[in-house]
């Protein structure tokens, strides 16, 4: 039976692999349409089930089936995903913030800057969501990963107590901010 620690690693690797896969798909599509979105989508769905079942079902045969299937799906990206997840290099620059408490399931938030009802008015540089408190983040602005301070160019700081992200420059209306929290 797979241990809880192994499952935690699998979930982390699958999270990163979904993004690596999406990036790879975009590049392939530029040259030749290779539809691998189903694989990425399936990995996402299997990972979500794994994430949901982890607190209750680790150690059961049925859970191992799902975990091993997830491993099969993210195997293509495992080397890169392991490096990103374990060393903090790559998509996540610097040492990832280790959650101080188990905060719940991972997820994604997408916000359009300046849209009607948007929590981020145009020409401001802050976004606060308590859901993000004590989480590890991947911050993406208009499909580009934004690195935490002190990275050159646009960067951000994150207050993991209040869940506030502060960018080094104001965001413009229509920009799409996507935050993956783990």
């Amino acid at each position: 039976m797979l241990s809880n620690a192994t499952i935690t690693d699998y979930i982390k690797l699958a999270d990163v692999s979904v993004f690596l896969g999406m990036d790879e798909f975009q590049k392939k599509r530029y040259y030749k349409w290779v539809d691998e979105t189903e694989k990425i989508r399936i990995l996402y769905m299997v990972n979500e089930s794994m994430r949901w079942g982890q607190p209750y079902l680790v150690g059961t045969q049925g859970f191992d089936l799902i975990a091993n299937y997830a491993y099969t799906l993210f195997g293509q990206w495992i080397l890169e995903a392991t490096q990103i997840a374990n060393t903090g290099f790559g998509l996540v620059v610097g040492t990832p913030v280790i959650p101080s408490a188990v905060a719940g399931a991972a997820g994604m938030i997408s916000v359009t800057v300046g849209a009607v009802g948007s929590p981020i008015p145009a020409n401001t540089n802050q976004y606060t969501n308590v859901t993000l408190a004590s989480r590890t983040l991947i911050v993406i602005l208009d499909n580009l990963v934004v690195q935490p301070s002190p990275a050159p160019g646009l960067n951000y700081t994150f207050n993991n107590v209040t869940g506030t992200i502060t960018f080094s420059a104001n965001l413009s209306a229509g920009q799409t901010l996507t935050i993956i929290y783990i």
Partner: protein
Amino acid sequence: MPFVANYTVAQGLDCSQLIITDTSSYASEAKVTFTYRRLYLYKADGTTIKFPSGSTTDYINFSFASYPTDQITITGIDQDYGLRVVMELNSSAPQPGSIYSKSTIVGLTCYTNTALYGVAQVAAVNPARLQDPVFYESWSDLQTERDAAVMAATYGDQLACDAALKRAKNIINQSALRF
């Protein structure tokens, strides 16, 4: 320091149960100063979940005497709902600046998650099932509804949350045909 009402809502593996924990700090105002503590679980149609099942009141009596650990397990949840959960306390000596009521939108997704878990197992055992577009699309649709419900709850949209969960329920009800 003013009193601020707070609570958490959780579901375990048993989807028929909902666990609500009062996490308010009673350091600033002792429990004995409160005359009642009530919970309202409003469904999207405005009706409330009754607990115990025979209750005739809209509220659930979450009294300090009956629930000294500040945790209540509500049973009989028959399906996923987009709920508005309200905890209301009545103080006999209200303090300025204190907040005695808290309301949040909560998406109960346990039944949907259980169904998704079952489908993931089917795919894991027999990946060839993914060649069947009905299987794949149904799975994807169900996941989309779950994600939509969670996102809607995050943004406080009870109607959208509940609608997504109802669509998810429709998919689950057709499991024999889809999965």
